[in-house]
């Protein structure tokens, strides 16, 4: 988890959707993507992406948790004693995780059963804690909200790409719809894609493609 000093974005008041703030949403989708660039939250990205449906639900859950925790921590940022900030952050994150968990259980029980442990583990998802530490602790609620949304969506984008290829190549379907059967093509499911190793390979390929397009290189 990042212990870097929070990056302060905003000095004086400016409109919520100023150019700088819009970047807070667009950067995590590409050049500052939580999975492919910061390499956070990989565990859940490998675990919940065998099917598109699960990936979508996970995306929504994580986006809600990150965005709302960001806002609350940002509101409290000047009152939290820095020595116990991690435990305060955890308490707030777990509040949201439990809410999301209960909502899923109430309205979509089957998916909840499938995802349960991973929804619970959002508490320890490095993306959530990372954004709280690195952004919400040093910025106003508005930009923090955008930052949380952006990172949740950046995470979700990769989840959807990985989920798409895993479900398509592994089971020959998308959102449970048998694509190849509908086209009358016999398709043999690729078992590797259903294993976490297959997800790892796809994430690697996504990183490869992304970096050859935007030219991002690690700096040491």
């Amino acid at each position: 988890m990042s212990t870097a000093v929070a990056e302060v974005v905003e000095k004086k008041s400016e409109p919520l959707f100023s150019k700088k703030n819009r970047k807070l949403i667009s950067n995590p989708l590409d050049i500052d993507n939580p999975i492919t660039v910061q390499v956070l939250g990989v565990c859940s990205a490998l675990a919940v992406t065998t099917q598109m449906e699960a990936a979508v639900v996970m995306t929504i859950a994580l986006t809600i948790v990150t965005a709302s925790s960001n806002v609350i921590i940002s509101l409290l940022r000047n009152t939290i004693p820095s020595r116990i900030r991690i435990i305060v952050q955890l308490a707030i994150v777990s509040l949201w995780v439990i809410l999301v968990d209960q909502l899923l259980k109430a309205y979509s029980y089957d998916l909840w059963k499938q995802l349960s442990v991973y929804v619970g583990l959002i508490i320890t998802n490095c993306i959530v804690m990372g954004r709280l530490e690195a952004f919400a602790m040093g910025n106003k609620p508005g930009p923090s909200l955008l930052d949380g949304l952006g990172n949740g969506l950046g995470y979700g984008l990769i989840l959807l790409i990985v989920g798409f290829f895993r479900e398509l190549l592994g089971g020959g379907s998308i959102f449970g719809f048998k694509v190849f059967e509908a086209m009358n093509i016999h398709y043999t499911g690729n078992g590797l894609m259903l294993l976490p190793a297959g997800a790892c390979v796809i994430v690697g390929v996504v990183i490869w493609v992304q970096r050859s397009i935007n030219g991002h290189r690690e700096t040491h």
Partner: protein
Amino acid sequence: MKFLRNQLDKVKHSFEKGGKLEKYYYAYEALDTFMFAPNTTNDVKGSQIRDAVDLKRLMMTVIIAMVPCLLFGIYNVGHQHFLAIGQTSATLGEKIGIGLWQVLPIVVVSYGVGLGIEFVFSILRKHPVNEGFLVTGMLIPLVMPPDIPLWQVGVATAFAVIIGKEAFGGTGMNVVNVALTARAFLYFAYPTDISGGVWTYLGDAQAIAGYSGATPLAIAGDAVSTGENVVASLNTFGTGWNEGVFTLQNLFIGLRPGSVGETSTLMCLIGALILIITGTGSWKIIVSVFGGAYAMGLLLNLVGSNAYTQMPAHYHLIIGGLAFGAVFMATDPVTAAQTETGKWVYGFLIGLFTVLIRVFNPAYPEGIMLAILLMNVFAPLIDYFVVSANKKRRLQRATV
């Protein structure tokens, strides 16, 4: 030869700078240097290398070492086919015919897909075509079952070359053995086509009554639950259609079902001899893989909790693909340990893990593939420790 040289020279100008096909210069260059040793020499200044054996010639040596395995494999595929359908009167020619019919397409697909991808990458990345695939392209068919669907060979080859090699920077940069990556891919992606009773090519014919597709590894694995003596089961196996197929002697010679090139320990040893004499493969790795497997087998004999662990240790060296893996896969100079001491450790651990996986993990009857891939990943770490131990020793000796 002269004719070929002239033809190559004739088209050369259009590939050179300013020529029509400048973009494809490296494709031309690859073909040229594959046929002929390059005629360029070093500058007058600097190091002078006078050896004509460049990487392409080295790779050719490995391929020559694989030829005994390939030829034997082709014959064996046909031999097993006729035995399994109960046609004992088949002639040598018929057997080789069936073998060629099954094996050659696999070789062609493997080379076609692999070299195609190599050429594309060399043109995209503007570097000469890497030689590495010459060997990989031959290794892949040898570790496939004779009845593997060809599209799977193609997909696996593409996966291995792109993900296993090109993603890491091409020949010489890969972390794990490319041919084994292809096999591991198939093993996890389409397990039904590369495990179980797929090791004999049956074609459209009906198998003879009493025929069983079980491999020695599967028989030994079953012994864990049945508690029968493994050697006794192996000796009596095959009654009615292929008497004595799994006796000690026949396991060594290799007239038994299996992947195309892996069945014959004898042919692998001939290959090993070629590699060692020409200095292409490291004898230390080959010896230590066998040593590691044998030592682990002996250790298990001492523990001896079930029928599999009680199997005589030397059986581990001849069932499955241990010999083939030890000779052609573990010695891959790119993925093996580089230090001389490290090679002993690397090989020994491969042998050890092979037996460990075979005996204790029923999901993976053949351990050599996973053991080599595992040790490929750890080879740099072994080298690191060997080098730092060496540094320490020399520092102690230093008097300053």
